[in-house]
């Protein structure tokens, strides 16, 4: 049985924002950011500016077409060395690098490629989310 994790979330911008950690390639330390928990997204997407800041190559030739609420976009695939959610660390996670509109108030979305690896229990009253790795 794998361990349970419990983290807080907030409803900033009226969307569910979770704090996650991405490994910084410059310092080899984790950096924290808030992204949107989005079961409507098939993939995790992170702000291109943030990935660049963390030392990742965001101008690859490995592009993919994504369909958003506002149309079709082409984005770069990036492999993030480590992503930490709560205290659970995922390694070599493929994400898409995208420039979110400033007015979206978001730096990324946590999509189903990560969400589906866990069972989640959302407590809206206490703004807490419990999860457990299920593979």
């Amino acid at each position, binding site marked *: 049985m794998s361990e349970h994790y419990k983290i807080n979330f907030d409803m900033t*911008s009226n969307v569910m924002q979770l704090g996650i950690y991405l490994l910084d390639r410059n310092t080899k330390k984790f*950096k*924290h*950011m808030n992204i949107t928990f989005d079961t409507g997204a098939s993939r995790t997407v992170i702000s291109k*500016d943030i990935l660049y800041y963390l030392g990742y190559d965001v101008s690859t030739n490995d592009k993919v077409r994504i369909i958003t609420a506002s149309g079709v976009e082409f984005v770069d695939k990036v492999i993030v060395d480590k992503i930490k959610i709560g205290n659970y660390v995922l390694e070599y996670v493929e994400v898409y690098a995208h420039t979110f509109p*400033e*007015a979206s*108030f978001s730096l990324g979305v946590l999509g189903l490629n990560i969400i589906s690896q866990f069972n989640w229990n959302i407590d809206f009253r206490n703004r807490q989310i419990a999860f457990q790795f299920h593979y």
Partner: protein
Amino acid sequence: MVLSIQDVNKKFDGEWVFLINCTADEDGNLITGEVVIHSKSRDEVFREMQKYRTVDTLSSIRYVGKLPEGVEVIL
């Protein structure tokens, strides 16, 4: 000055903030941090935070506050 995340949320409502020297609890939730950049412009924060690229304390970037009136987000 190091502030609790609750105080950061109150003080910088409606702004993007970049924090260094953050602390987190055993579950990884941020507890405190030192706001070194804050602005209503996310891009300004992105530009300014380049100065802190080599800082190896725990840092964090986030938008604090509610959406402007009449605006909703669908990603």
